[in-house]
């Protein structure tokens, strides 16, 4: 039973992001450190734990079919799938050090620059031949702040999805997922194969050991092109016309002194300016 994990390389959360003055919709990359999307670590950890437990019991899997990659390596692997430029290999290497068996990278610029729906379609094509029973992804990509990818891939593979899992329980037939919604949570049973995106709290991602880092060097990162996958990126669906820093918040009021005095000023401000009282 195979598990596909959707991966992405993103700028470090701490990175200073500055729009590129010459490339519309892009950021200046020269000074930026890129990392594995933080949420993807929950997905990788969950996948690796499932494999370490002995994999999934027999159940549904994505039918292989024609057009996909002849990837299926037999019993029980967790493999990463990523769209990104060549530099994304370092993020994949990190995921391999965390325990994935190998990774597939689609690095055609047409794929890298595509919108989330197109990328989901491309990833679905890449994953198909791998015939996974479960597809895991991070809850959100912290660069584009999109959380749709797992659902889009699920649509194109014609399988169900659940987003934002805080807990996943598997039996051979289904995944029971607990996800938060406003005011509570939902328990959702998805028949396998299914795509599930992973939230913080699902698990505690491990630190890669140095031994695992060394082992990851021998693991395969396979680059595939859109042509090999037999898919096209299609017409552009959206375009970033401008990227800019949000307007700075206007300078605020600052008070210091006796707690009673500053609190009274605070109340006055809440009533007069914020109008919440």
């Amino acid at each position: 039973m195979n598990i596909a994990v959707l991966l992405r390389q993103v700028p470090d959360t701490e990175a200073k992001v500055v729009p590129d003055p010459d490339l519309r919709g892009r950021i200046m990359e020269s000074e930026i450190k890129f990392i594995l999307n933080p949420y993807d670590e929950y997905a990788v950890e969950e996948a690796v734990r499932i494999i370490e437990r002995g994999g999934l019991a027999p159940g549904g899997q994505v039918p292989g079919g024609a057009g996909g990659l002849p990837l299926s390596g037999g019993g029980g692997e967790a493999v990463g799938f990523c769209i990104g430029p060549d530099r994304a290999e370092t993020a994949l290497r990190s995921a391999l050090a965390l325990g994935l068996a190998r990774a597939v990278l689609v690095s055609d610029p047409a794929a890298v620059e595509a919108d989330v729906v197109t990328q989901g379609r491309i990833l679905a094509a890449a994953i198909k031949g791998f015939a996974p029973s479960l597809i895991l992804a991070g809850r959100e990509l912290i660069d584009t702040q999109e959380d749709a990818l797992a659902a889009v891939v699920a649509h194109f593979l014609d399988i169900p999805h659940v987003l934002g899992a805080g807990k996943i329980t598997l039996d051979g037939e289904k995944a029971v997922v607990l996800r938060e919604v406003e005011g509570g949570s939902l328990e959702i049973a998805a028949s396998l194969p299914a795509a599930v995106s992973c939230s913080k709290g699902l698990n505690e991602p491990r630190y890669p050991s140095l031994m695992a880092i060394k082992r990851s060097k021998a693991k395969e990162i396979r680059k595939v092109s859109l042509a090999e996958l037999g898919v096209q990126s299609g017409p552009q669906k959206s375009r970033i016309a401008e990227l800019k820093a949000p307007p700075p918040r206007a300078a605020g009021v600052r008070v210091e002194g006796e707690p009673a005095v500053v609190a009274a000023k605070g109340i006055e401000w809440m009533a007069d300016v914020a109008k919440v009282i």
Partner: protein
Amino acid sequence: MAGILVWAEVSNGEVRKASREAVAAGSKLAQMSGAPLAAVVCGDAPGAAETLGRLGAAKVFTAAGPGFEKYSSEAYAAAVAEAGQRFGAEIYLMSATALGKDLAARLAAKLDAALASDVTDVRWDSKPLTVIRPVYSSKLLATVELLSEKKVITLRPNVFPLGPERDLSAEIVPISAETNIRAQVLQALKAAEGAIDVTEARVIVSGGRGVGGADGFKVVEELAKTLRGAVGASRAAVDAGWIPYKHQVGQTGKVVSPVLYIACGISGSIQHFAGMGSSKFIIAVNTDKDAPIMEKADFAIVGDLFKVVPILKEELLKAIAK
């Protein structure tokens, strides 16, 4: 003229506030472009169609019966797509709630549409339709042109104003859609009685490292209760185990847009700001006058939260009593 279709999320038989904001936004778009506005409701919600009509929807498509009692991305996406096809919709709007974003993702794939999620502003008279959404941990804003014929947009809750309700009524159109439900909601678990979710609250009182421990959250909770707000927390407080993860605001927590955000003992990291930077007003209480949050706050109180916050609560009770 291609239409605008809003998915109205129903909770306890009522159209959610966030969805009413989305209908108001749809109504504004309709006015600017001359396009007709419709809404679609899934599940049994007798009063919903009427509400949506008063908010400006000319038609309300309703999908009820088996398969629609509980949320299902597959069945709901099929119903919204069916309504959209009947209505000739090009623009699909919904609120960026947990389920709104879930549905939008599946729907956009199904329609091969342009998807823009968690949008914070719309260029109402733009062509092609252009929206603004935060990216890179909210460090930047992207102006996105939606080029595809079909567009699916989710709007961040608490950002778009509610529209007026007028004496209008909508034509109700029952629809059916194929429901092949493979992801089934087994049960909905409600949060504790009286607890307000941070993503829905008008006011959030949050605690961070400065709160010092689980006990320290009492003063934060009491102020939140007095303001009828929700309790939030920074990652530091959650990671320390002082408060459950569901309260976490920020990069790895929830994105919130309350009218007022009160940060108690929170230094204000980039990651925290990514989650609450779009709050309308920010109050910070911190002993460290140089903490980053003090620069971003509209009202910064330099002081010990354990002294200031209880007085705030007492004074508020007095102010409310007046």
